């Protein structure tokens, strides 16, 4: 029962306010309705927030080629809102805005780093989009390192080849740019928001608030964490990977296991190696995979490679990765697109069978995966025998293999096949014509060079240029710059870049070498 006071000139009248049973019933009903409404509003708000912040919605593609190029394998940041894990790239809109925020650090845009853009796509091949942690995020997928281009001439349109090593990709430069720009003094909330809106991002009030309070500081914090962990591998003082190479396992040590890289023996840190091709994976099952043959399981190799793209055991998208794997099992290598001297190639086939086939299989592997009994294809050759640069071999250690076994615990994904080997593994040479430059560290630019003794191989050359050299079979290496894009000068005298070893066939007559190279165009 309430009370009402009426103030008059000479007194204050006080009256009681009564409630009838109907009043009480209605009040109860309304209380319930109000509570229900409040609950509904809370539910809607919480639901909306949950949809936004707990949602995990990758951009999906029905065509497998598009999925390979742009689909997410889970390498975007994920896990918990408070402490996100995984991912090596800033959120989508920031990623898009970065070249505008720091134009002097990347005048040619992402394309100048060898990232490949297709018409109708705002992101380069190998960069996926996924809605996670309340924002559109981007991540790297398999295609970033396994898609390349070639041209017949400087005037030709580049041909994009899926599964081909990304011989033009400057991944180290890519990370250096993101690191430098996100820590640049221009990377302020105001600037980021302005550039994002210029780039077409529609940011509402709530979004802008989140950019200020969360996204911009978190991106910088994430960069600092990454720089703290892998800084030894970046910057001018570190080994220069150049175009088409990556140090596979050293970043892995830091990012997945929090190793202090600066405490490692220095000779473990010169390990940059070429990207391999992805085609014909089914007949590779059971072969000793990776340059040093440290794992003979396709699944484990794939899973491990995805970790390098920024995936973590928490954020990985296993079905998406499995879809890529399924496709690569039978993905054929590209046909050699230029003229082949059939007679010379036929003669070369005989020589190839005599000198190469035991370790590298022949053209039948391309179409039927043929590996004859007795061949040693996909097997480790001891370092002393192969003689190639030891840097990559040294970077993969027994201790590291032991750590890898700790990943994916209590799941069917747990690693069991990694091991420290004695050397480098040989590989089938399907599509070898477009896998230049050669040897694990890409130290030999063409097949013709590879059949020369080490001392006769080029001491320095440019790599990353995609105009093809059908004579020596490989990419042209004499172009330092084209259209403002600079190419990487590869110096074989630097640690990890040695071009020695693999001296098979180097003593053959030049005519035989030429015939072997001509045949290898058919592989």
């Amino acid at each position: 029962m309430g009370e009402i006071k009426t103030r008059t000139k000479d007194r204050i009248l006080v009256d009681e306010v009564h409630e009838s049973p109907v009043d009480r019933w209605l009040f109860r009903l309304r209380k319930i309705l109000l509570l229900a409404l409040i609950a509904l509003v809370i539910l809607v708000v919480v639901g909306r927030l949950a949809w936004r912040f707990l949602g995990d919605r990758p951009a999906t593609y029905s065509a497998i080629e598009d999925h390979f190029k742009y689909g997410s394998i889970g390498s975007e940041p994920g896990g918990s809102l408070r402490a996100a894990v995984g991912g090596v790239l800033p959120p989508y809109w920031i990623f898009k805005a970065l070249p505008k925020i720091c134009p002097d650090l990347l005048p040619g845009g992402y394309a100048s780093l060898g990232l490949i853009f297709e018409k109708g796509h705002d992101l380069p091949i190998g960069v996926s989009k996924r809605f996670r942690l309340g924002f559109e995020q981007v991540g790297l997928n398999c295609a970033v390192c396994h898609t390349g281009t070639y041209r017949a001439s400087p005037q030709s349109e580049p041909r994009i080849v899926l599964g081909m090593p990304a011989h033009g990709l400057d991944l180290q430069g890519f990370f250096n740019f993101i690191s430098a720009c996100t820590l640049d003094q221009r990377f302020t909330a105001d600037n980021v928001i302005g550039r994002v809106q210029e780039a077409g991002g529609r940011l509402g009030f709530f979004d802008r608030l989140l950019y200020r309070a969360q996204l911009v500081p978190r991106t910088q914090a994430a960069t600092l964490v990454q720089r703290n962990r892998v800084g030894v591998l970046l910057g001018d003082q570190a080994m220069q990977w150049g175009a088409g190479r990556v140090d596979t396992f050293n970043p892995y040590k830091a990012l997945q296991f929090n190793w202090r890289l600066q405490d490692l023996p220095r000779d473990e840190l010169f390990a940059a190696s070429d990207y391999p091709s992805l085609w014909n994976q089914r007949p590779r099952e059971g072969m000793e995979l990776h340059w040093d043959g440290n794992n003979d399981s396709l699944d484990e190799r794939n899973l491990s490679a995805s970790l390098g793209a920024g995936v973590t055991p928490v954020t990985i998208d296993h079905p998406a990765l499995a879809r890529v794997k399924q496709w690569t099992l039978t993905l054929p290598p590209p046909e050699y697109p230029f003229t082949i001297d059939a007679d010379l190639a036929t003669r070369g086939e005989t020589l190839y069978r005599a000198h190469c086939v035991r370790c590298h299989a022949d053209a039948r592997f391309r179409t039927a995966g043929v590996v004859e009994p007795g061949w040693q294809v996909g097997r480790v050759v001891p370092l002393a025998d192969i003689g190639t640069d030891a840097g990559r071999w040294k970077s993969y250690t027994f201790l590291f293999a032991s750590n890898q076994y700790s990943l994916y615990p209590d799941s069917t994904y747990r690693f069991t096949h990694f091991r420290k080997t004695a050397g480098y593994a040989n590989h089938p040479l399907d599509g070898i014509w477009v896998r230049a430059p050669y040897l694990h560290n890409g130290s030999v630019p063409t097949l013709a060079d590879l059949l020369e003794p080490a001392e006769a191989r080029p001491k320095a050359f440019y790599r990353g240029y995609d105009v093809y050299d059908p004579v020596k079979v490989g990419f042209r290496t004499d172009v330092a710059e084209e259209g403002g894009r600079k190419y990487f000068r590869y110096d074989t005298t630097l640690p990890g870049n040695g071009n020695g070893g693999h001296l098979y066939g180097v003593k053959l007559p030049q005519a035989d070498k030429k015939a072997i190279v001509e045949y290898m165009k058919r592989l």
Partner: protein
Amino acid sequence: MADDPIFQPLRFRNLTVKNRLFRSSISGRWDNYDGSGTQARINWETKFARGGIGAIITSFVPVHIRGRIMPNYAMIDADDKIPFWREVVRSVHEYDCRFIMQLSHSGRQRDVPGIENFMNKALSSTNKMDGFHGLLCQAMTRDEITQTVQHFADGARRAREAGCDGVELHASHGYLFTQFLSSGINDRTDEYGGPLENRARFLLEVIAAIRREVGRDFHLQVKINAVDNNNALYPWEKKGNTLEESIQVCKWVEEASADGLHVSIGSLFPHPQLPSGGFPVDEANWWYGGMVSGGVRAYLNYALFHYKLLRPIFLALWNRTKKDMPVEAVCAAEAREIKKNVSIPVINTGGYQNGALIRKVISEGYVDGVTMARPLIANNDLPKILAAGRDLPERPCSFCNRCLVNAIANPLGCYDVRRYGGDRDAMIREVMSVFHPRQYV
């Protein structure tokens, strides 16, 4: 008592009342729907006569069905109503109490239209709806004015034939006469609108018509607003007539042969300032529902009464001018100003209960008598209590106005349960006492 100014006779030109206490107009809905009377009304009026009141001014008695404020009020719209009123007069006269019929027409202020009026708009001086409930209306034509004037004259004749001691024209509280008189309402451009003399024309024509019908020797008084305060509820409304304008109207009324003036205030009813006191929003929540289909703003009002969270909005508007007004004798000062300017007796309404205060306003020349309703509902025998020398009854009226709001739907009586010690059954018994004695036993 012999020297008590309250209990001195009051002599009008054609009527003498034994004391200075009048029961002002008030009624419950206890007559037949068609306006014919019942035993309950006889009982009701007799209660007050028995209690010692000098004169009773009847309830709002419509002179025509279109002027009814709500059904179940006895009317005087036809000769067949005369016998009933004659019986009421007879019963009241048994206690030496005079009986003055209040001849009324609601105009647009037709709270519950009833089935007879539901499909027509109310007649008024204006086409503008009433500001409180949104009651729709249309401006009367000159023919309709002429007819209505005659309805009043006929009503007066019937009252006299029924033995009434006089009639009162209800020209206050926002009913039809006010709708013509008030500058806050009347927006006519013909000879019944504009200047004050035009706005007063309708009232003066009715007085003249009554005199033509009943003669000069029948008591005729006019209940009139001293001020309209038409903007007391909604500040954006026009203020209405001033005291000076009302004084002028009263002079004209006197010249037109009225025998007395009954001074009140407020251009609507209920008005924030009269009846004075509180506004029982709980009762409004319970009983206002019967009015919601009658006006276009009534749903809004109902919502304001119904939802507790909204009640403060209405109360803030309703009470905003009360702090400058007393609860009792709310317009005694204005009545005194009128009295100074006329020579006929002036009686005054507005929360009179306290004997000392009544004595003061009479003895100091504010007014010649007072009219009261709510204090008499609370204590039917208040005159006897005052006569016994007490200034207040044991359980005085609290001015809560629960009686007022209940009148829309329920038998009229005192609904302040605190006056019954919280005993709701006792309260109901008291309210139901109006139905005794029964007509058929």
